[in-house]
């Protein structure tokens, strides 16, 4: 290939001698500054709670210190902490299953108008069924607690995965599909090199939404027959009128969700490193 080794054509590539400018990322300081209002708002909420704990019954609104010591007790005792970990693992397994199951109809609907007209109504229907109904069905259909929980999580979250993926597949610009055809991309390459990267942002958004849905659904699911798990602990706290424990479990669950979201954000910033980073947003 001797021709290929020739010198650049435009003698003195005049417009652009040096290479791209380094990419800018938000500094730690900027990040901290951005989180100030959130911290203030949450602090105010905590203050209100503390204030009401002074005036109302301590059974209804335990003080922050009580909640804090409940949380400490949970975190330092594996027998307790295990409930949180098990719940977290259930969420992840349930969502992975739901994603795998939801991807298929999502992609098919994205590609085919015919399939879309049949599947869409079904998905909307399934999406409209409340989590509690799935709990009842799960109890009637399955005996194993883990199977029931996984089933409930899948049913609550998979339609959302499907609909997100469908929208994203349909949103892949016709121009890019044509590009694939013009270069004779195989079906697999068309999907792997064009469609999949193009829908990755939407897939990540659907995960962000479904992590929230999953956390909400899993505790409901765990009310039925699970002897371990945050849902079970919440039920116990309720039967013992222990509001401090109930609050502690709830807060830990929310913190776990935040942890998941943070991990998701890290994955996102790796997978979507190609995206322009604006200095204003």
């Amino acid at each position, binding site marked *: 290939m001797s021709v290929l080794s020739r010198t650049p054509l435009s003698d003195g590539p005049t417009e652009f001698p040096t290479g*791209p400018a380094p990419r800018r990322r938000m500094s730690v300081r900027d990040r901290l500054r951005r989180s100030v209002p959130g911290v203030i708002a949450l602090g105010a909420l905590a203050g209100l709670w503390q204030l009401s704990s002074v005036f109302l019954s301590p059974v209804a609104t335990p003080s922050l210190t009580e909640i804090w010591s409940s949380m400490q007790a949970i975190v330092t005792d594996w027998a307790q902490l295990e409930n949180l970990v098990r719940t977290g693992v259930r969420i992840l397994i349930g969502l992975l299953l739901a994603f795998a199951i939801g991807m298929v109809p999502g992609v098919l609907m994205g590609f085919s108008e015919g399939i879309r007209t049949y599947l869409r109504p079904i998905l909307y229907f399934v999406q409209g069924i409340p989590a509690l109904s799935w709990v009842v069905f799960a109890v009637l259909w399955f005996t194993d607690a883990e199977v029931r929980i996984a089933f409930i999580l899948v049913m609550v979250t998979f339609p959302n995965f499907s609909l997100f993926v469908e929208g994203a597949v349909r949103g892949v610009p016709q*121009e890019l599909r044509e590009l694939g055809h013009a270069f004779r991309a*195989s079906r697999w390459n068309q999907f792997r*090199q064009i469609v999949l990267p193009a829908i990755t942002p939407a897939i990540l958004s659907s995960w962000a939404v479904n992590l929230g849905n999953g956390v909400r659904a899993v505790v409901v699911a765990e009310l039925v027959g699970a002897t371990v798990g945050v849902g079970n602990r919440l039920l116990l706290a309720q039967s013992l009128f222990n509001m401090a424990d109930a609050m502690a479990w709830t807060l830990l669950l929310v913190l776990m969700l935040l942890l998941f979201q943070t991990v998701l954000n890290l994955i996102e910033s790796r997978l979507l490193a190609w995206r322009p980073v604006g200095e204003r947003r």
Partner: protein
Amino acid sequence: MNAASPTALVRFDGVGKEFSKRGHRFRAVDELTFSVHGSERVAIVGETGSGKSTALNLLLGLTRPTDGEVRVIGLDPFAQFSELAGRVGIIFQSARLLDWRTAVGNAAFGLEMLGVGRSERLGIATDWLTRLGLGSFLEAYPHELSGGMRQRVSIARTMAIRPEVLVADEAFSALDEMTAASVRADLLALLAEEEMTTIFVTHSVPESVTLADRVLVFTRPGQVRRVVDVRDLRSRGRSDSEIEEQVRAGLRDSGAGAGVAGRPDTHD
């Protein structure tokens, strides 16, 4: 003048393409006949809606002709779609880069689709980008490149597969005049070094005369109204502006007065 030659590299023979638009049928291309020989360079000009892009899509096998016959290197581009892999290439009006790939990743895309191994395709892509003046932008993402640079990457992507037939659809019309001139000059220099049959659509009459051996003037609905043999006219001592006048006369004949004159002819 319009007969399709059986030995041609690209041959359209009485080709029609019908679309159905809101219920009623509509012919974008009708009885289109022309042929292009090996290493010939042909420009297509014509009023908007005269079926130029449709003709290129037929040539690439992206759409199926309603009637007539299209042959590219002896193959039916629609029915024998994958057999033309690597043998036809297109440069689009917009760069159509994949945002998640770097310049070199984008330039290697075509080779990757042909199954060329990673290090080989990256090497070839790097060479082409370097020839197009993008040697220091190999790892840049599309959003870090200017419009002209992006179009250069797309040119590298197509040239890297070394197609026997190169097709370009208004490849410079999305660029500003100065950038278009410099990208055009680069492509022209590449084409001068490569043996490649080239068919390109342009809205610039001077561009068609400068770049092509032959100019096909299209008229609605998708027919060749006139053929201007630039090379022949030049050998008979005609100046470029005289040849351009012939192309313009062809456009006027086709009743395209409004269609084409209304377009800014950027290179006049």
